């Protein structure tokens, strides 16, 4: 029987699939134990932060300052230009940040797909990782990074974080039928990340804490 090259590549690909977890360097955690911290982007004592921001939307870039403030029932977030004009303001309810409300969006930016994308990106940032029976926890070989995977509705969420401090280094949302969102976080300063890089389709954001 002749095996065509295309078939061979497909077979090789299928053979590699079970090994993919091994390649990523993470293995399932047996018993996480009480010492494992919870994945955290904004610490429980976080109050507010200002970020110098560069937001690229379909090739066009706007810059300014993003203000994030913790309130009793969620997070408030607004972006203002350097000259002071407000581009948008959202409220992200605690526990359901993807149900955010647009409090204000400048008319020229007030497009439904754009609002959805902004809510999706910031909602992911404000979402708390779920620890339940569906949650999968993996750890890398050097025991310095945990990968938490949990599922909600039609999305899979991945959190790469420090098992001791709980600081999240990378966040991802993979939707079964939708755009993938990826957020890289670093330079934590006590209560919040110093650097936030967001990628979602044709939208990208670079936030540097002031």
């Amino acid at each position, binding site marked *: 029987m002749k095996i065509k090259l295309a078939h061979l590549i497909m077979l090789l690909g299928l053979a590699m699939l079970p090994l993919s977890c091994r390649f990523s360097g993470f293995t399932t955690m047996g018993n996480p134990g009480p010492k494992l911290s919870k994945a955290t982007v904004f610490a429980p004592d976080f109050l*507010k932060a*200002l970020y*110098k921001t*560069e937001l690229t939307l379909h090739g*066009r*870039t706007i*810059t300014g*300052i993003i*203000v994030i*403030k913790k309130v009793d029932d969620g997070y*408030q977030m*607004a972006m*203002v*230009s*350097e*000259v*002071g*004009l*407000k581009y948008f*303001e959202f409220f992200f309810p605690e526990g359901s940040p993807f149900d955010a409300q647009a*409090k*204000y969006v*400048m*008319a*020229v*930016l007030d497009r439904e797909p754009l609002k959805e994308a902004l809510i999706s990106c910031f909602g992911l940032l404000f979402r708390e990782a779920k620890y339940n029976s569906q949650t999968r926890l993996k750890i890398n070989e050097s025991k310095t990074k945990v990968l938490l995977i949990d599922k909600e509705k039609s999305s899979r969420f991945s959190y790469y974080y420090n098992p001791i401090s709980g600081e999240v280094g990378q966040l991802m949302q993979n939707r079964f039928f939708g755009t993938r969102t990826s957020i890289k976080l670093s330079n934590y300063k006590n209560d919040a990340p110093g650097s936030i890089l967001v990628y979602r389709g044709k939208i990208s954001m670079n936030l540097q804490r*002031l």
Partner: protein
Amino acid sequence: MNLTKLNSLLLACCFPLFLGAQEAGFQPISDISSVTRSLVKHASATNTLQSNFVQEKHLNMLEEVLTSHGQFFFKKENNVRWQYLDPIKYTILIHQGKFTIDNDGKVSEFNTDGNPMFREINKMIITAIRGDFVGNAEFAPVYFEGKTQMMARLVPVVAQVKSMIESIDIYFDKVTMQVVKVVFIEPGGDFTSIRFEDIQVNKEIPDSRFELTNGK
């Protein structure tokens, strides 16, 4: 009463609070022609302007005020250097028909014709700072007078500008007719106040001030 009307009413009720911070007792001016004559005369006699500025952003969601400092340079006809020094480094340059932004070393040139939002923001700022709005069909001005200052409240006529700005309040020194403060009031009540300090009029400013290669 719909929400927009309610917001407008609330804004109107709150507005005296903003004025209170500047100077109490502003009254509408009856002799508008005399004021506009003075403004036109002053604008035509102003060849250059330079000053420091303090910008304060008041957001309803935040108790604290976001404060920025910087320098402003203007030279006739349309040369502007609007430079933020703290807490961010950000410079807007308008020179020889080009619009350039230096965002902390990242330089970009903008075609304001292709970016309506940018064009309108730019126009508003320049109009406000120069005090050069008499006869500008895009704003409906109303004039007020206090003890030492006058205030022109510009209400945008164009729908796109209206959606960004409820009004621009420009405060002038009554003696020098110099713009001392500009307040941009947004729909919803957030506002930005820009206070000019150490204003110098008609002092020589080299063209190189409006280029990024010098004085960065």
